[in-house]
């Protein structure tokens, strides 16, 4: 099974509704501390503190360019593909359920 510590940190990071709001915002694209603080109704130092927790939890990563720190979801490059793959797998699972049902409803003996 998985190492418990990253999970502990992850769940801790998500235990706060303000941080979850930041995650929702970041899932739509990277943002600066200022851009995140506004919608979360936080002052900059407070936003930064929360973002640090998210970063330690492995949820987000940050990058400093000049004087601006930008945050982004961590597995940024692979996340859309994984989301799409999961959607495909779920759709196929459901389709194959219907396939099994259709076959059961029309067994071979019943064919002409």
């Amino acid at each position: 099974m998985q190492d418990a510590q990253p999970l502990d940190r992850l769940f801790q990071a998500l235990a706060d509704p303000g941080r979850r709001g930041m995650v929702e915002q970041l899932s739509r694209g990277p943002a600066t501390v200022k851009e995140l603080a506004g919608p979360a109704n936080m002052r900059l130092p407070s936003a930064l503190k929360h973002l640090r927790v998210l970063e330690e939890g492995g949820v987000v990563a940050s990058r400093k360019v000049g004087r601006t720190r930008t945050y982004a979801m961590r597995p940024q490059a692979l996340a859309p593909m994984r989301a799409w793959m999961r959607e495909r797998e779920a759709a196929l699972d459901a389709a194959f359920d219907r396939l099994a049902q259709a076959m059961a409803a029309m067994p071979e003996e019943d064919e002409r």
Partner: protein
Amino acid sequence: MSEVQHTTFTIERDLPGSPRHAFRFWAEKALKRRWTDCHPDWTVLEDRFDFSPGGEEAVRWRTAEGIEQTFTARYLDIVAGRRIIYAFEMSSAGARVSASLATVEFRPGGMGTKMLYTEQMAFLGGAEAMRMRIAGTGTGFDRLADVVAMDGAGVH
């Protein structure tokens, strides 16, 4: 970000009935549409089905939100009762999201047939389409699940 990302996934299924019978549900349009039609609220704009090597299957829908979706496949290899290989693309709102090679294998076993579906996918993003598609589906938390999976496994 890289333009194209590749991944492979497999789904194994026990199906009631012989491989020959299971195969018919892929090979005959009326039987196939019994299980591929899944969105009663989508309008079917086009539905072509030519199940033969080199033949094309093409379905085009309009979603309830008015977004056009396509599935276009070309059958490459067909061995009755045993194997189907096809290449296909999926698009949303005019942007191609992925292009894949799918291999479906049927073997006797279990309840009658063990079906193995393997998809080798080139993910193209179609950024706008993806954003529309995954908007409001809790993607933020899906990504968290990714984080967990990645931390745990590293590779899948």
